[in-house]
């Protein structure tokens, strides 16, 4: 490939835009505090949002398959309180954590069975389980909290290795991103997701086991919420029923800002990871600028809307030829390209129908 061709391809990528955003917000943060650019701060930037990232990785699979799971934060809460209750009953902390993962996977599986087998709308079902699971978490643990987890365990969320420099949680996130990225972009299961997300009917006629894949995707999303819960408790050192409430906005923003098409069929793991870094950096920068939590939520909400509107504009531009080549290519991910150029059921889901 010529240097010019390579540059053109890099310029045309959504991920490039995200990197530019990360650099931009980084410069802004640096002007706010010279400590921003220290190695320790950069490495620790994402640590408080690792649980958000783990949930976003799971949600990415769901959204690429053309569905949505807004119950992830509530699933995390149930998983965390089960984990805490079992631990408080005297069970080994690691065994209790595994039990928490099992609970989370079961809750995800419940979503999956309702959506994948009974063919119910994931939007309404996970809205219902969003409330039901959150209520369940309160029912299990009440308003109290469980703390006093051993340090050997809390290290998964707040510990460091390699001379107290490298956060363990960051390594966990990168490890899962790598593995799930491979699953998404290299395996047959991953290909199925893009196919189903692009056109479910066509996928069915091509022999894709649509029902089974959709159930699996929701169970995976549940499992990732459970793993996020394990890291969450490790980072904060305590488990409460209201764990991670309010993180849903960040999770959805990371996925959508990462270039995953909200209508399914397009997306890349790298993009989601970069978007998570951008969200974390942005919140960190706003903290440096003494901007409070509510305003941060407003900014993140606007970012989420802007990401979708930008995607819509680019898609419209691509078909009408309004935008120049590199920008037109922005929405195409590595793997997403093929799914994107395949026949998309763009007319089945009318834009005004809105879901």
């Amino acid at each position: 490939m010529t240097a010019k061709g390579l540059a053109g391809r890099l310029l045309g990528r959504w991920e490039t835009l995200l990197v530019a955003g990360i650099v931009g917000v980084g410069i802004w943060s640096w002007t706010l505090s010279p400590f921003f650019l220290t190695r320790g701060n950069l490495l620790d930037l994402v640590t408080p949002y690792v649980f958000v990232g783990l949930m976003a990785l799971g949600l990415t699979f769901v959204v690429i398959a053309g569905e949505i799971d807004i119950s992830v934060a509530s699933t995390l809460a149930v998983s965390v309180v089960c984990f805490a209750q079992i631990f408080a009953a005297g069970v080994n902390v690691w065994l209790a954590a595994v039990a928490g993962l099992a609970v989370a996977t079961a809750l995800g599986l419940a979503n999956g069975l309702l959506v994948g087998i009974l063919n119910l709308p994931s939007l309404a079902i996970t809205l219902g389980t969003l409330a039901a699971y959150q209520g369940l978490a309160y029912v299990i643990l009440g308003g109290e909290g469980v703390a006093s987890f051993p340090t050997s365990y809390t290290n998964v969320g707040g510990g460091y290795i390699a001379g107290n420099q490298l956060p363990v949680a960051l390594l966990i996130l990168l490890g899962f991103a790598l593995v799930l990225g491979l699953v998404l972009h290299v395996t047959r299961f991953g290909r199925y997701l893009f196919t189903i997300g692009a056109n479910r009917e066509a996928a069915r006629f091509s022999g894709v086991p649509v029902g089974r894949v959709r159930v699996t995707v929701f169970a995976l999303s549940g499992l990732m919420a459970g793993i996020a819960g394990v890291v969450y408790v490790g980072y904060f050192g305590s488990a409460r029923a209201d764990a991670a409430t309010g993180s849903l906005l960040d999770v959805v923003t990371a996925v959508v800002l990462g270039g995953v098409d909200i209508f399914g069929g397009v997306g890349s793991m790298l993009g989601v990871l970069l978007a998570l870094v951008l969200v974390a950096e942005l919140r960190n920068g706003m903290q440096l600028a003494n901007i409070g939590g509510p305003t941060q939520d407003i900014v993140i909400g606007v970012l989420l809307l802007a990401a979708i509107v930008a995607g819509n504009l680019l898609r419209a531009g691509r078909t009408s030829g309004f935008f120049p080549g590199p920008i037109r290519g922005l929405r195409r991910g590595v793997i997403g390209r093929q799914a994107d150029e395949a026949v998309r059921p763009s007319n089945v889901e009318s834009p005004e129908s809105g879901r």
Partner: protein
Amino acid sequence: MNGVVRRLTPQKLAAAAFRLREIGIAAALGISVLFFAIRAPDFLSVSNWQGIAQNVAIVAVVAVGETMVILTRNIDLSVGSIVGLSAYLSAATFVHHHAAPVPVVALIAIAIGLGLGFVNGVLVAVARVPAIIATLATLGIYRGIDDEITGGKNITAYQLPDSFLKLASEKPAGLPALAWIAIGVCLVGAVTLRWAPWARDFYAIGSNPDAARFAGILVRRRVITAFAISGALAGLGGFLFAARFPTVDAVAAKNFELDVITAAVIGGVNVFGGVGTVLGVALGAVLVATIQDGFILLRISEFWRLFFNGFAIVVAVTIDALVTRRLQDALRRRRAEVRAARHREAQA
């Protein structure tokens, strides 16, 4: 032959299914009233029912707007934040202008909600952001604005004028004033959805957005209208909320959208759009409020309430989808039978 066709019209079959739905809700309501009446002696007292009526009123007012949005095959998650924001702004207006006329403040609350709902509508219909994402974002954004305005402070009942608090305390003809307002809103909503041509469009859009567009319906404008009405009624709901729960802070009406959506979905509004009536939604709101009140009287933890809401949504959606599918299958079968009968007739 003619008789068979008349008996099998899709409209009649669908109408029968709806009637079944409303009868079902009424039956569920009867059973829960009976259950709580036996288990909790205070349940049937007049004051308890007045409390229930006040809770129903606020949920029902907001749910009428939510119904219009869901009818167009969209959803509005942001109503909880609109109610919270409007509740605080209404109360704050009274704190700063103690003698402000109540209807004027109500109009301000409605106008605020209308504006916020309009933003939702534009995001969904013009910017083409899926409703779930758009209103999830504005749920966060509006709550953030609420947080910024309240700044951690709260308003208490002592700061509010009696003329405003009377909305909750006064009971003309035995029913709380709040409930009379809700009945008025429900009546207007029912008449509108039944007879106003622009509101009938909501059903058309929800049943088949593409067909609606091809039929010349101004889909975008109608969707914006539905969101604007939902916002306006959430604004009014916030005003009523402040009268009912006069201690208003930044977390007021958090998760309220779940109550509203539960009422609508239990009340037979199909999440696929195109199906639903105000009568059903009102019954749904009564059912939700009755069961929640019963929970409190039976000293069942407040925590079960959220669980109940979510569980009810899942069950109602499941039943709706299965019934709709059965209905469609039956219609398809019968249409085939009719065709076969006609064919035989032509042969003879």
